[in-house]
């Protein structure tokens, strides 16, 4: 196995598409992508699945790169940036843990109590540091899975609409309309919780 440093040193300029193309003949090259993006993918998975489910985020990250490796032969080499592709794979894997995610969002949402009355301030503040704010968690919990998936790829992973379209395999027009519906839904949910 060529070390990441050595690879980086030799081929500083190789973009993602070039690395994937090389990995068709020299599979070890694929680990360059892992070194580039595993932290980022893990960050996204950890945010989605929550602070108390790090092991799941670890699994999702490892699995994302194994799946990507297996499918590298089908990668569209015109796409220089591999992140949307990787996020798409990760999003699929996270979707398998949908129940974990919604359970967590509902638990966080409950911190405010059903009547909107906040819990003891200290406990809310403590949760704030590592977790999602209760009212935002409630809004997310109220979304359909595919709405949440797209919304968080844009809001948390900071993918452009075009990249999100690649990640989810949907037309960019669908990204726009779905996002606009989702934002309206969130607006309503936040309005109600105020």
């Amino acid at each position, binding site marked *: *196995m060529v070390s990441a440093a050595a690879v980086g040193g030799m081929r500083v300029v190789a973009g993602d598409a070039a690395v994937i*193309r090389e*990995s*068709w*003949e*020299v*599979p*070890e090259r*694929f*680990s360059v992508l*892992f070194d580039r993006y*595993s*932290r980022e993918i*893990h*960050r*996204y998975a*950890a*945010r989605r699945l*929550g*602070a108390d489910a*790090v092991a799941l*985020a*670890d699994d999702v*990250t*490892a699995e994302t*790169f*194994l*799946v990507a*490796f*297996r*499918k590298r*032969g*089908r*990668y569209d*080499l015109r796409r220089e940036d591999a992140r949307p*592709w990787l996020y*798409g*794979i990760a999003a*699929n894997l996270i979707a398998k843990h949908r129940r974990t995610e919604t359970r967590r969002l509902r638990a966080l949402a409950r911190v405010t109590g059903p009547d909107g009355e906040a819990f003891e301030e200290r406990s809310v503040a403590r949760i704030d*540091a*590592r*977790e*999602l*704010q209760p009212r*935002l968690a409630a809004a997310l919990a109220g979304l359909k899975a595919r709405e949440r998936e797209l*919304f968080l790829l*844009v*809001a*948390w992973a*900071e993918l452009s609409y075009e990249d999100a379209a*690649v*990640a*989810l*395999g949907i037309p960019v027009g669908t990204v726009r309309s779905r*996002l606009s519906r*989702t*934002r309206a839904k*969130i*607006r309503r949910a*936040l309005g109600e919780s105020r």
Partner: protein
Amino acid sequence: MNEIELFREARPEAAPYSAEAMAEARRRLERRATPRSVRRRRAGFAAGGALLAAGAASVALVVAVPGGPERGRLAAAHEGADPVVTLAGAAPMSATQVLGRAARAGDELAPRPGQYVKVVSQTMFSAESNDGDTGRQGRYLYRTDRVIWRPVRAGSPDVLKITHLPPKAYPGWPVPRAAFADKGTDWVHLQYCRNADLGTDYTALSRLPADVRGMRAHLYAAPGDGSPDTRAWERAGDLLRETYLPRAQRAALFRAIATIPGVDAVGGAQDAARRTGLGVGRVDRGIRKDLIFDRRTYALLGEREVVVDAAQAKAPVGSLIGSTAQLSVTVTDTVPRVERPRDDRC
């Protein structure tokens, strides 16, 4: 502030990626990636995989194994194959004679631009693996069924359907866990996998020298490891594997192979489909590598690798460590469209 910005601002802190989890994930990826690379080095089959049809009646050269549904029977034959073989005695004729007859055998498929050469084959090759945890090296024999569609003119991708069969033990080595990583059937696009200097699409092969001297020079111009003779032999295999050569180039190639020092013939060489033919090959680093030809039609049936030097090959003499069968080479007008499954956006 819109909803996207609001949520971005309030993004929860992500739990850190522990160094141990990251290292483990990377090791898992390396374990997946390493065996293939070794396969490629050892046999040149990983990218290409199978064999060519040199031979006779190349149009729908379906080499039927008698009786039963072909696929199931071939698989069964493979399961039952004993990986230890005895090198049979002298062939009834010399390598030059066998290759000369192979050069005269076969029809002209004459595929046209826009068409595809479809090759069905079965392969077994040795692979090495490295266990990321223990650093221990493993060896095993990996087996696949392959169907490849190759455009007559390079440009559009090759489509490869590869079905992973259960691995076998490399003689004297336990089968490592990594050997079971490949499962099921994969559809793969191979678009840029070919070396530019060695295109093996039909159009590129048609442009190769059609005379023995020119073809021999082409073989000896091959880059790579090993002696010039070894490289020439390996390149010959690359030209034959999962390709269709026009008759003129095919004839030149077989006659050129006969000029590589050390090439001789043996009888009783069996391919992966258990068809017995005449072996033409040479010994390289403790392993005898043969092309196997049909005894009557002189069509190329497959390839075989057998250990002849235990120390060099790290396996007992007589171990079968490579075995392929080319089951058919045909020309098709269409290629399966490799659909992306709905949930597969990769």
